């Protein structure tokens, strides 16, 4: 295959690909923000909430971890609006699904981190006479976040990758654009390889950051 011709071909479609990448990053970013918030709240509820609430959030986590993201997307796209009888925009449905999925997987990471902060640290807080209004924001929360960062970052990579599924419901993300161009031009090799490369470069960099963080920062603190 002629590399310069392939690059020239890709260059022609730079706009479509960058629009797709922009959408992918947009969906991922929104999913992250809402998903992490949901995840933290859920993990706290599971740790110390009302029993009824616990059952509800546990069921939620199990459902979203126990079904394919693809079916979740279809369900939120085509079932929920009809059941509720309200209009839900496509971007809204997409971000809703990704957020709920991210919330489910990251609640597990937060939970593990909360658990890893041994009872010893809580005892130390009592022995120092720290009330909850001090121990939670100054001792428990910072340690939870620091500890959860590596798994949360890999959850972010997971979400970024899973977001490719939104192409199946017609959201014009990177995957959708790549597929459209491949289909329309009947030249899948260049375009799909380029798409895969874009995903790879981003996901790979983030995983490097994760191991850098784990080796450097966390090791120094011996968390």
């Amino acid at each position, binding site marked *: 295959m002629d590399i310069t011709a392939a690059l020239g071909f890709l260059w022609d479609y730079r706009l479509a690909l960058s629009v797709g990448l922009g959408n992918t990053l947009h969906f991922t970013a929104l999913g992250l923000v809402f998903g992490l918030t949901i995840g933290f709240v859920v993990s706290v509820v599971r740790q110390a909430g009302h029993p009824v609430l616990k059952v509800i959030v546990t069921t939620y986590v199990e459902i979203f971890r126990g079904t394919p993201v693809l079916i979740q997307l279809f369900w939120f796209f085509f079932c929920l609006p009809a059941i509720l009888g309200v209009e839900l925009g496509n971007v809204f449905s997409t971000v809703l699904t990704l957020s709920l999925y991210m919330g489910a997987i990251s609640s597990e990471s937060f939970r593990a981190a909360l658990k890893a902060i041994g009872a010893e*640290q809580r*005892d130390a807080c009592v022995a*120092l*006479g720290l*009330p909850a209004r*001090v121990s939670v924001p*100054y001792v428990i929360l*910072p*340690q939870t976040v620091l500890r959860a960062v590596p798994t949360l970052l890999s959850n972010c990579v997971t979400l970024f990758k899973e977001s490719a599924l939104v192409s199946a419901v017609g959201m014009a993300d990177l995957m959708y654009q790549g597929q459209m161009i491949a289909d329309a031009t009947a030249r899948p090799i260049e375009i799909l390889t380029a798409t895969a490369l874009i995903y790879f470069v981003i996901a790979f960099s983030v995983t490097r950051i994760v191991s850098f963080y784990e080796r450097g920062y966390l090791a120094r*603190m011996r968390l």
Partner: protein
Amino acid sequence: MSSSFLNVQGLRKSFGGHLVVLDDINFQMEAGERVVVIGPSGSGKSTLLRCVMGLEKIDHGRIELEGVRYIEADPKSTKDNFVNIPVRNKVGMVFQHYTLFPHLTVLGNLILAPMRARGESRSSSTERAMQLLTRLGLESKAGAFPGMLSGGQKQRVAIARALLLDPKIMLFDEVTSALDPELVTEVEGLMLELAEQKMSMMIVTHDMWFAKRIATRVIFSADGRIIEDAPPSKMFTNPAEPRTADFLKKVLHVETIS
């Protein structure tokens, strides 16, 4: 009775309802006393200290400090005791595994409680903390994270952190048993210094030599009860109970400490 400095009455503590770890403990202590608790593993030494600190829900009994009841079993509540928090805050405790907060520097660990819980200003608490660190020869470590300290340094910082709250009594639970043998001395040295300043203490340790040096009184506990309570001179040379003698023999490999 209630004129004692520390007064533990009818203390009973079980885990899961059936494993009774402390069974009707009655124990008094005067200000300035240094009580060392010894006994076999699992005999409830740590649990006793944790109850005095208010870290465990007790089944029965009450604990008073300077005549004020600050912990009392509350049979109605399944989760908590009655706790008088201002009085409990006069008790300080240091644990076996350096429970410094790893995300804060040494100085950050020291000033957290004075600043956030006692409302002391940053400048005043920092000043007091730095004075204490200087006394301990640790002023150069103020900005270091706990992960960068040796075990002995960590434990001395943990003790300093408790001291900065001006406790009436300090509880030490095997604070040296996770340390390398040479590092033990620096921590024990600091405790001996506190002893000279007449700090009231309850100490759990497996180091009988240290026990002998620091204690004004030694308690031998087994199976959730206080078996013997005597001054160290008596306890280590001529214990009254055969079980105490037995235990000391096992731990010391020698008959008595001269």
